[in-house]
């Protein structure tokens, strides 16, 4: 019985979705190729391990920021193109705080320069010796402010921009969010300047060298911070959605808003909490991303945004686990693609992955499980 059942299910899958089969075969083929390359020594195991580490780190950031996007996408029914700039705004507010604390509130540099995160090369993160081990208070303080700043920003923008047109269709809201993105991004550029700055003392970060088959993989304290923070927050969101009344209300609303309203769920309050949770995660994601990669620019969030969309769509809109898994898949795809194609196409490969998923399974991997 079991065999025939699984056989017929497999046949259904193949007949119903030949593209999925091709897609699956392609992935299997690529994996075989990777194994072959590793065995023949054309590609070093350690360099693949480094790529995997990088991909996982990026994936965690994408996943963390993607949770917020996924939640607003399913509960408010629109693709928020300003989400990337919430990331940038959170990162800038957090890093201004970190600079301020690490700079001794003006004792080692001009307060203005510190608050503008060293606009125009007036002060450098490396000179302030910023790292999670050297200046833990500054980093933790910055992270908290990044989360808080992004929450405040998303609540204010929701109140001013999105709430008055809540009842319109998704496309109207999408276009509006593009306007928000523009205004936000170039306000950030106007205030903080167009330069990309280094934020951390790259040399001063403790590093652990893990031996792999034919080399070593260096894991820094910032890698570890990113993993711990992202993992912890993801777990927190999971518990919140599964164990609390608020989480239940959110899931109900994502499922069917009218029904939720009739049942007596205070929908506007749920919406507010959606922005709070999503905004907080987004701001922290932006902060740890900058901590991890060591540079900060006004363009960072926008660059991440399309990858986050890819992750959210890949995982299935509305599912936070989908966003997390999608983020990891997208991060790994972009990172590992350099084994086969030039690195200038690594982001393109992630987009291609998204388009393929949309063609093969438009509802995403975790489809039909809204916010759960």
């Amino acid at each position, binding site marked *: 019985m079991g065999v025939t059942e699984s056989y017929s299910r497999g046949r259904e899958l193949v007949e119903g979705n030949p593209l999925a089969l091709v897609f699956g075969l392609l992935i299997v083929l690529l994996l075989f190729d990777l194994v072959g390359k590793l065995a023949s020594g054309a590609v070093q195991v350690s360099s693949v391990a480094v790529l995997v580490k990088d991909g996982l780190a990026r994936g965690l950031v994408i996943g963390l920021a993607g949770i917020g996007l996924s939640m607003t996408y399913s509960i408010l029914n629109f693709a928020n193109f300003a989400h990337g700039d919430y990331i940038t705004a959170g990162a800038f507010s957090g890093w201004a705080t970190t600079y301020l604390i690490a700079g001794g509130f003006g004792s080692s540099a001009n307060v*203005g320069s510190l608050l503008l995160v060293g606009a125009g090369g007036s002060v450098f993160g490396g000179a302030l010796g910023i790292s999670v081990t050297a200046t833990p208070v500054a980093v933790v303080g910055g992270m908290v402010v990044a989360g808080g700043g992004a929450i405040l920003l998303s609540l204010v923008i929701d109140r001013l921009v999105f709430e008055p047109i809540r009842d319109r269709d998704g496309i109207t809201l999408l276009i509006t969010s593009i306007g*928000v993105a523009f205004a936000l991004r170039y306000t950030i550029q106007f205030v903080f300047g167009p330069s990309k700055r280094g934020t951390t003392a790259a040399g001063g970060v403790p590093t652990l060298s893990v031996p792999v088959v034919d080399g070593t993989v260096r894991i820094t304290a910032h890698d570890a911070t990113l993993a711990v923070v992202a993992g912890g927050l993801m777990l927190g969101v999971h518990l919140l959605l599964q164990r609390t009344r608020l989480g239940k209300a959110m899931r109900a609303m994502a499922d069917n808003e009218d029904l939720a309203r009739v049942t007596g769920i205070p929908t506007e309050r749920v919406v507010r909490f959606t922005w709070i949770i999503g905004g907080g995660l987004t701001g922290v994601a932006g902060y740890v991303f900058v901590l991890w990669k060591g540079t900060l620019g006004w363009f960072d969030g926008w660059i991440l945004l399309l990858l986050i969309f890819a992750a959210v769509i890949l995982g299935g809109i509305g599912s936070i686990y989908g966003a997390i898994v999608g983020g990891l898949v997208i991060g790994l795809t972009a990172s590992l693609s350099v084994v086969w194609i030039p690195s200038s196409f690594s982001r393109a490969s992630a987009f291609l992955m998204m388009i393929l998923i949309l063609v093969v399974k438009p509802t995403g991997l975790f489809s039909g499980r809204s916010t759960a």
Partner: protein
Amino acid sequence: MSTADSPLAALWERDAVKIGVLLAGIYLAYVLVGVVLDYGVRGQLNSIATLTFYVALFALLSLALNLHWGYTGMFNIGVVGFMAVGIYVMAVVSKAPATEAAAGSVGGLGLPLWVGVLAGTVAAGLLGLLVALPALRLRADYLAIVTVAMSEMVRFTFLSGTFQRFEVGGLVIGFGGGSGLLLDFGSPVEQLFDALFLGGVYDGLVGLTGTVIENNPQPVTNGLLYGVLLLGAVGLYYVVLGRLGNSPFGRVLKAIREDEDAANALGKDTKAFKTKAFVLGCALMGLGGILWYMTSGAITPNTYRPRLTFFIWIALIIGGAGSNTGSVMGGALFAALLFQGPRFLQSVVNNLVDVEAPSTFGQALAPIAGAGDLAPLGFYVIDSVRQLQLIVMGLVLIFLMHRRPEGLLGHRKEPAASVELERRPDRETPYTDGGETDE
């Protein structure tokens, strides 16, 4: 509907008049500012040429986008990708050939300009077809994300070192990577006149400009003539798309926009209709991209960032999606007020005062706290007009979506039938029921 009471109002109801009045107003404002600031003839002519250039291009591109969004309801935010493909393919086809690989320069196929323009347009259409195959069956918001991702993929391709240069049949061609391509095929205007055997007319026009500008009148003449050429292209797009919209084909597109399932149920192959409309719009966008950058001398991939797409979207939304006249007016307004206006203002201020802009926002704010000196902040604002104008565009977009999502003319309902359905009020025969009307 209100009937026109006076001849003037009747005149205003005509679309050509609306566009004409708007353009006249815009030009008058620019010329007046030029007169006040004593620009001189050369400056005036140049400013008019630049204005015409952007007015025409934004009108062109919003017309093309209107075919996608206004007529068919396809949410394409990858416009810039099609523009980039158009101009890049055109450049590769029409650039002068380079055979020696050692020179470091990238050549083209050396074919005539019109072949390049055609090839670029077709290439943009083909890319549209490639995107349409997977993407058009998706929801509108998915289509949006796919198209914007596609436009970024196009940019990565042109940016990548892999396609920087390669040899085809002994010719070194390529996309030039990050350093871009030099467009070395000379002035398209001159070539157009020569191709039409009107070289004498061209020389005459240059001579005519020479009577008001003493030295080097040729670039000014070229700019003005190119502007006229672009306005001609706008007219062409307008007529073609207008006819298309009123054709049976266009009516199916509008039906798809309103309700795709219903159109499908009526036996229309909506997918085929959407694909055709999408490909045509993409080709028109490619041509728009070619016309935009053909005279720029050089192209680099990072020009083609998604914000260019959003410029065109704002232009279309100002004008009102679904209306060709609105698209043209929106393009003109966007170009004059939001795109070119702030830059114009910046040069005006730069002419009037010595702008010594502080390099950072902090240095701009510090004097206010100290001595209440607002000048540095003002200078900083003027110096960063290009960022501020984008903030303003974002705010305008939000404002429009809140207060007037239908734009200037998007409220219009275009008739779906080819015959007039409403009875004319001025009928000759008297009413038999005593003339009772509801009005």
